[in-house]
């Protein structure tokens, strides 16, 4: 018991001392060790092509066309069937990706460096709302936007970041929490703060006013722009927490649209998986829960560091996706998550909870003991390839993942 508590003290100290900064944007092939031609990184724990859900398959075929590996979507699908592409989880390559989470060689990735530990984590740039690849969209509009991100916006973004020596993220998050963001479904404040911090640098490093205008408009027009930054930040904070002998703190939660997986510090790189659940939520006009794909994406890294559903009290509107949507309900969600963590974060506080810190360091033992599964705020993708986002809502992590983790940790500590 003391071994676990001490290990978790270490784990949470590493989380709290993390000092993430967004430092650069570079092509994935340059940033990510081991990434190569015809390799596709995806969200969640490992999943084979044949087991992928509709939107993930749609995204895979789209990215294959984007990378020039296939003539068209049909060709991409045929190639995938014959094993022409190598699939790996983002998490195995220091990366994360929202929803389908496609990461491939020529995409620009944002680089977040954890300056306290020197590690780096990567995430692609948020494409905006509507029909986008992360939700399985793959038509010309989707691919054209990716090409613009690769050819114009990504390089400009990188120049701007290098110009200001990187953008520190910890205080930005602290501010965003006081402005109504929970960093998963709500990123309006942090996106705006980012734009405010970067606009002068974009201007200073641009000689093309049209491109500059479009870049700034792109950030300003996308309330979720910051989500992918928050995700890379989450990954950079959690990676130094891995492999602490005896620790029961969750280092990653992630879904591939088929399975939900978690990793725990004291059990190394092992994934504990269970069938993923259906989100409960609200749908765009024309769509219902019948159209919904099960839960998906690496974005749960945000909950892993105490944001998203864990910080629901900071963002009462998000509670409206389920239940009555009152501020008291939102507060209750954060209180419930405080039951399953090691401590709270003294720097990331929520004004409406009398500046209580966000719940930090999910302990698999407490999840199993209380039966309170982590609450996750999420977007909802259409179950068919190519359609895109159809709604948003809230979902619980499956308890079975945590039960397996507790058992595995007990075996490892010789107390099973």
């Amino acid at each position: 018991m003391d071994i676990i508590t001490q290990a978790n003290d270490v784990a949470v100290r590493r989380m709290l001392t993390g000092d993430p900064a967004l430092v650069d944007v570079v092509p994935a092939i340059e940033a990510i060790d081991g990434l190569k031609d015809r390799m596709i990184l995806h969200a969640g724990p490992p999943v084979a092509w044949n087991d992928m859900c509709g939107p993930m398959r749609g995204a895979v075929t789209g990215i294959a066309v984007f990378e020039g590996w296939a003539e068209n979507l049909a060709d991409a699908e045929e190639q995938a069937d014959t094993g022409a592409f190598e699939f790996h989880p983002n998490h195995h390559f220091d990366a994360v990706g929202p929803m389908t989470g496609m990461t491939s060689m020529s995409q620009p990735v944002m680089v977040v460096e954890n300056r306290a530990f020197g590690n780096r984590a990567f995430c692609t740039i948020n494409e905006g709302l509507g029909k986008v690849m992360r939700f399985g969209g793959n038509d010309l509009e989707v691919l054209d936007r990716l090409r613009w991100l690769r050819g114009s916006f990504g390089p400009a973004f990188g120049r701007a970041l290098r110009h200001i020596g990187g953008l520190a993220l910890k205080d930005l998050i602290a501010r965003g929490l006081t402005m109504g963001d929970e960093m998963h479904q709500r990123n309006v404040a942090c996106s705006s703060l980012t734009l405010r911090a970067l606009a002068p640098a974009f201007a200073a490093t641009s000689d093309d006013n049209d491109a500059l205008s479009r870049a700034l408009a792109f950030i300003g027009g996308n309330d979720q722009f910051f989500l992918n930054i928050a995700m890379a930040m989450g990954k950079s904070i959690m990676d130094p927490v891995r492999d602490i002998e005896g620790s029961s703190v969750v280092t990653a939660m992630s879904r591939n649209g088929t399975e939900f997986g978690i990793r725990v510090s004291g059990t190394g790189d092992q994934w504990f998986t269970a069938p993923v659940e259906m989100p409960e939520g609200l749908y765009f006009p024309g769509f219902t829960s019948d159209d919904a794909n099960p839960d998906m994406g690496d974005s749960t890294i945000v909950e892993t560091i105490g944001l998203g559903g864990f910080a629901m009290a900071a963002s009462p509107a998000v509670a409206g996706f389920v239940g009555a949507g009152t501020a008291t309900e939102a507060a209750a969600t954060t209180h419930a998550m405080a039951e399953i963590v090691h401590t709270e974060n003294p720097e990331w506080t929520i004004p409406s909870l009398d500046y209580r810190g966000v719940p930090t360091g999910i302990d698999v033992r407490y999840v199993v003991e209380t039966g309170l599964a982590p609450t996750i705020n999420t977007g909802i993708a259409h179950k068919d390839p190519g359609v895109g986002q159809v709604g948003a809502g809230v979902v619980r992590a499956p308890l079975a993942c945590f039960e397996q983790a507790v058992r595995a940790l007990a075996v490892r500590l010789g107390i099973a």
Partner: protein
Amino acid sequence: MSKMVTQVREGFFLDSVALMRISQTIAGLPGVEEAALMMGTPANKEIMAAAGLLDAQGEAATGGDLVFGIRAEDEALAQVALATASDLLFQPRTSSSDAATWQPKSLRTALPKLAGANLALISVPGDFAGAEARKALYRDLNVMIFSDNVSLVEERALKAIAAERGLLVMGPDCGTAIVSGVPIGFANEVPRGDVGIVGASGTGIQEVSSLVARAGGGISHAIGVGGRDLSSAIEGASTLAALELLEADDATRHIVLISKPPAPEVATKVMDRLSKSRKEVTVCLIGGGEFDAPVEIRKVDTLKAAAMSASLNAYFPEWNTTNEAQSVPPQRTGVRGLFAGGTLAAEAQYVFLAAGEAVSSNAPIPGGARWVNGHDGHVMIDLGSDEFTRGRPHPMIDPSVRDSPLADALNDKMLGVVLLDVVIGFGAHEDPSGHIARIVEATDQSDRPVVVASVTGTDSDPQGRAAQERRLDAAGVLVAPSNADAAELALACLLSG
């Protein structure tokens, strides 16, 4: 042909989740095929267009405008939906104030909210009680385990942990305690005083503490230890720990130990400890028969005697059993006791055996016989035992457990007396006497057994002892001041016949 209507409100912002909620409500109205309220951003307008909810007017909206798009079966229905949507935009929000205070879900999160807490009450299914008790003990909390169905092995382990850490485990299957004046579980409102009780029995503690209170005394602490504590497997672990606590407690003048007959080697151990006590000590082992007790220890056989032994003042108001007795016809020879309290049933058996009357019971004490259905003679039934409570509440909580046996007994031509207990206090039914009275009143009054009862409790209890006694009296029930007196009265009724 369906009809689409749109409306744009310029410069009106509402949170997108709130809008989605209203959209969902409008889409569910009669005749509405599709509805959306969205801010007019390019992405939103694209979604609305795809859903067939955008016309030229909507298309012209900007990100700062709210767009209504409603498609319904006809124009009238669409207009109704549009009006409803407008109303919903301005509907006041209801607050769920009952959710305002978060109830902790674990000791870990609860303890910081209650500084100085030192006792945990555990009431979960028996299979999980041990795990919860360990959590409490390792957090240096004393533990009262209300749960039953905890294995002997687990009980032994828990009490060993408690001993190591200088803590007390009350239970398992401990229903009654009064700690520093705070009643826990099934307990009575008694004044604080100088009598300390250690009991393996809940109703035994209730009867003694209530009688002490009635004699003008009070209770320092009443500590339940669970029915198996004095078995050879548990070796009196909690009894000995509780005795140490009372020994060290300056407020305690007199210690009363209540138990069923202990295992002989455990009795020796406990008596040995008691003989070294600096306090006055009374031991009540109901039906325990002979055991060696040092002279300093007062041995008594009934709960009433235990209460009298511990009390400084003279006892009850004038009570003369013979004067109260009602004669019964000679052909009515049997007494049927129907008890909610197990120890009260045992005490009644003891009174009968001591008077030379044979008695049987589903929970026989030494010297008594095991009752089988259809058995003649005097029978004392413990209605709280498993055969009556499996799958239903204890008769102290739900007095209807006694309804059918009571009606049968009242109509039994062989019975001279029906003997009852009425246990009140915290946790007990709100009006057990009323429940009994209604059944007695529904019986043919000219030809029924005499009904004798006593009320275990105090006037300060929520139900009120005097009020409960009056209700019984009004129904023609003879009311005795204690359970032992009620048993004596039952015998006196038979003898006067």
